[in-house]
């Protein structure tokens, strides 16, 4: 297969061509998902382990279904019910799972870098399904794919990501990927949640939401984590909603064809107005649908022919 890369931990070391390959193959996978029998034998004989050390229903379900639809065997590991609560280390857990002859790990963890450690400890192909604040590469790929389906291109698109940038792996991965693919990315949020150090390449950061959304092709709202309130990052939820909510009025500043994305789960009427989320501009459900095609494509590129 064409990526030449063993892991998808973030986009470091990935070429534009390899990433394009994943986006292209997602078209094929999307077609598979539209068939009456949504299953292909591409990963027959391959065992994929979803090692989720942090709660996630959507991402885990999406990955597991993607793997099963390609005929892989899936070993599901959820940390809550595991020996981790008995004090076992990440390394021991991974080595134990590895002993079941797993071919690839799909990892979700609360600590940035944990997916890198799993790749190191297991020696197996590892896909990062979200680590701490660091990276969520398949989310970024499905977001890029959603833009590609909408506009037929990524290059030159103006993408504005709004919300808690500081704690967001989705923002980091999107900024990294979209910059590589030639989009102009603006990260926007209150100053307490916006590291100015993330400005790099075509990626800009600003606290001025009105300016950030002007002429945007894509506006992505991020989930505001309620627990951030305890960290003193924000005066109040209502203050946040007043200043940084993505809603219809704000979208008037964007291009007429602008679409709205959200990685979910949403806090309706907090970071995004419920009516906008349900409007014709919203591609939030399409993101979920495309997510499965993207994850099938990633598994295909990383695992087929690698055994």
């Amino acid at each position, binding site marked *: 297969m064409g990526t030449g890369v063993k892991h998808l931990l973030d986009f470091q070391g990935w070429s534009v061509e390899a990433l394009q390959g994943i986006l292209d193959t997602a078209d094929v996978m999307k077609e598979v998902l539209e068939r009456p029998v949504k299953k292909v034998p591409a990963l027959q004989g391959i065992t994929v382990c979803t090692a989720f050390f942090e709660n996630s229903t959507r991402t885990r379900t999406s990955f597991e279904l993607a793997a099963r639809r390609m005929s892989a065997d899936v070993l599901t590991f959820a940390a809550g019910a595991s020996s981790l609560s008995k004090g076992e280390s990440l390394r021991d857990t991974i080595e134990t799972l590895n002993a079941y002859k797993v071919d690839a790990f799909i990892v979700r963890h609360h600590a940035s870098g944990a997916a890198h450690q799993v790749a190191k400890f297991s020696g197996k192909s590892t896909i990062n399904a979200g680590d701490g*604040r*660091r990276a969520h590469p398949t989310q970024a790929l499905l977001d890029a794919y959603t833009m590609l389906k909408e506009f037929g291109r990524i290059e030159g698109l103006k993408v504005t990501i709004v919300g808690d940038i500081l704690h967001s792996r989705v923002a980091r991965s999107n900024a990294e990927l979209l910059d590589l693919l030639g989009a102009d990315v603006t990260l926007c949020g209150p100053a307490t949640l916006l590291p100015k150090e993330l400005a790099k390449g075509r990626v800009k950061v600003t606290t001025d939401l009105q300016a950030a959304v002007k002429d945007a092709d894509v506006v992505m709202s991020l989930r505001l984590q309620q627990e951030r309130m305890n960290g003193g990052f924000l005066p109040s939820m209502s203050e946040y909603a007043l200043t940084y909510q993505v809603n219809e009025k704000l979208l008037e500043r964007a291009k007429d064809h602008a679409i709205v994305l959200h990685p979910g789960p949403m806090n309706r009427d907090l970071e995004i107005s419920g009516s906008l989320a349900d409007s014709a501009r919203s591609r939030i459900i399409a993101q979920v649908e495309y997510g499965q095609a993207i994850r099938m494509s990633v598994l295909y590129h990383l695992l087929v022919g690698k055994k």
Partner: protein
Amino acid sequence: MLEIKNIKRAGSDTLESLFIEEGKIKGWNLSETATDTIDGKGATVAPALIELHAHLREPGQEQKEDLASGLAAAAAGGYGTVVSMPNTSPVVDDPAIVASLIQKAEKLGFARLKPSAALTRGQKGETLADLSALKDAGAVMFTDDGRTNENANVLRRGMEYASGLGLLVSVHAEDATLRQDGVMNEGVVSHELGLPGNPAAAEAARVARDVEIALLTGARLHIQHLSTGRALEIVRQGKKAGAPVTCEVCPHHLTLTDEALRSFDALYKVAPPLRTQTDAELLLAGLLDGTVDCLATDHAPHTQAEKEKDLLEAPFGIPSIEVAFPLMYTHLVKTGKLSLEKLLDLFTAGCAKVMAWEVPTLEEGAVADVVLLDLDNAKAVDPKAFKSKAKFSPWAGEELYGWPVLTLVAGKVAFQG
């Protein structure tokens, strides 16, 4: 009487002989016949190094390190004297613990142990420990190292009280409310990696407060492991203003930066964190201009399993007591940034002056704490061969010069390589 022959004094190429009798230096190049002879094979001789900041983990965390492994590691690193930190389990805030540590260490025959004790009970920063009784038991310094003395008034009273006993207080100067849950330097790298950052200002702000307390009280204050150029500048200004402040810098802050965290390896997780290249350069400038009084390792051993945890959970600390001198010699002296004499001063006399101890020499009558250093041959860092229980190192595999080949403590062999 012991003769160590074929050794060179720092800065000289002449091969000489040093004579030692009853734990003291007897003299140089004597015509007397020794009962024992050690061939130094051209090594450079210096007073044994002094460590003001080592975590030996006993009592309570012997799985990480104990007195035997830690003091053997210190001797292998060329150290004759080690000041241990009190953040053990239980905390060293009881005179009986101080006495028992000293008693045990004396029997071991490795480096000499000089325990520090907690400034406050349980290192909680609330009530002063029994400082006088702790001193009587043998404690040489008071510190809540590992904790950050959030209550300025408790620190003030502690410094005043310790000053009355003739001892100093050392501090881990970091504002915990600014540090928050930071696991690495706050900056470009932490934001890119999505790891919680600890801003340089957390150190500078606290150093500024503590320098003011030193000016207020006139009591001696030692600031541990400075990691930022900004905090160092505040110390520089404080010294100019007459504050009785001293400070130390650690080898890892001079040789590593936050870029190392891109590996996501918790081996590089240390408190205070690895900072930027600019900080490392400013710290080096502080060594050169005398703002930095001494080098200390902050030797912080942990188990391998603990260091293999994720970056949020893994403990802070780098074990470094066995490589500190070769590391500094190779990085600073071999590269021409610092003279050998200055480096030795930072590892010996500088430390003694901080503690108001007699400055070590190799002159007749001095205590025979001696180290021989092989400055000519490189050897790779091999953590598996460490005497420390922590058999991992950020410098594993790196070829270094300046390895200790012999350490004598009071004339007795504590380490022979």
